């Protein structure tokens, strides 16, 4: 069985930190677990929304946001397990394709939060191919850290909806715990966009 992340060399925290540093204007939704920790470790900002649940919902939450904010780059950063729970979301994104939406899946081939059990991407599922088959033509696999700059340029360009499957090491890192108060996160995110609470 092919393992899509075998031979992965990318350190996830470094990748996310470099991506955020190159995309300082982007609005970011992070899927639950390690992806949210990676985003927080890169530096908290009001334009970050960290999910602690709603598994499978990160990409579609990004979709609603991207449609509402067409002049901003919207970045979804999530893990293979989170995306696998919402595979249908890739079809929904594929049917809409807002040019300002980028979905970046940090694929370590495992469910990191629950004991590093192998996920489907270690057992044959090729996420970038799924995304491409859902109509997201700009679907790529990233194997090297230095590809982050080209990815950031595409995120910032807002010329096409894109999907990137980033093959990261299955390292277990210390947790970097972001805020968990959803009401606060929602309100500060909207405030950063000049929007009232409701």
């Amino acid at each position, binding site marked *: 069985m092919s393992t899509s992340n075998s031979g992965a060399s990318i350190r996830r925290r470094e990748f996310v930190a470099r991506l955020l540093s190159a995309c300082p204007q982007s609005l970011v939704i992070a899927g639950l677990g390690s992806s949210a920790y990676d985003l927080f470790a890169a530096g908290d900002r009001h334009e970050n929304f960290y999910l602690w649940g709603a598994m499978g919902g990160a990409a*579609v939450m990004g*979709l*609603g*946001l991207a449609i509402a904010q067409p002049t901003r780059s919207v970045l979804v950063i999530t893990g293979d397990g989170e995306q696998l729970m919402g595979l249908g979301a890739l079809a929904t994104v594929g049917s809409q394709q807002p040019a300002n939406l980028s979905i970046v899946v940090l694929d370590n081939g495992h469910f990191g939060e629950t004991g590093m059990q192998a996920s489907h991407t270690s057992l044959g599922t090729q996420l970038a191919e799924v995304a491409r088959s859902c109509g997201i033509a700009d679907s790529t696999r990233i194997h090297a850290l230095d590809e982050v700059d080209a990815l950031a340029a595409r995120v910032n360009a807002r010329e096409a909806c894109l999907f990137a499957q980033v093959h990261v090491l299955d390292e277990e890192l210390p947790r970097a715990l972001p805020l968990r108060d959803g009401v606060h996160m929602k309100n500060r995110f909207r405030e950063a966009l000049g929007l009232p609470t409701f």
Partner: protein
Amino acid sequence: MTQDTEKPPAWQEDIYLALKAAGVKQVAYVPDAGHAHVIRRVHADPDMRAIVLTTEEEGVATCCGAWLGGERSVLLMQSSGVGNCINMLSLIQNCRFPFLTLVTMRGEWAEFNPWQVPMSKATQGSLELMGVTVVRASQPESAGETVRAALDSTFVSGEPMAVLLSQSLIGRKQWVKN
């Protein structure tokens, strides 16, 4: 129901007009015959975005994303879809997102398909267990006003709301063509 060829019921147009008047921009849906007219109208409206879903829970998340970005959104589904949304509704409760779903009921009135019944019976309870306030429209003349009131409760008062549209309002589904 053969709404593709017949004039749609006025209450369905009333619902579309209520969404339009409230400034709803994104309409996420899993189709149902009772929503067919609204879905057609939204697709034809250049100021609204229709988002077809593979499963209803996606729409809970798109509505939250839309709100984060400053747009009003609603989710259209049938009663069976409520069951698919349960965990995703944590997002609504934790973050107190304004949320409105319009739910066409199956399995409660002149139902042909028994597989619709269990989730139908659990629809209102499931929503309420997850913190969503449920109201119901059963008369054609009150459907529009019920939706207008729910839009206010949602977007003016910040309340998570569901409007159940009774199966008797929607009518019998024709299983065998005459």
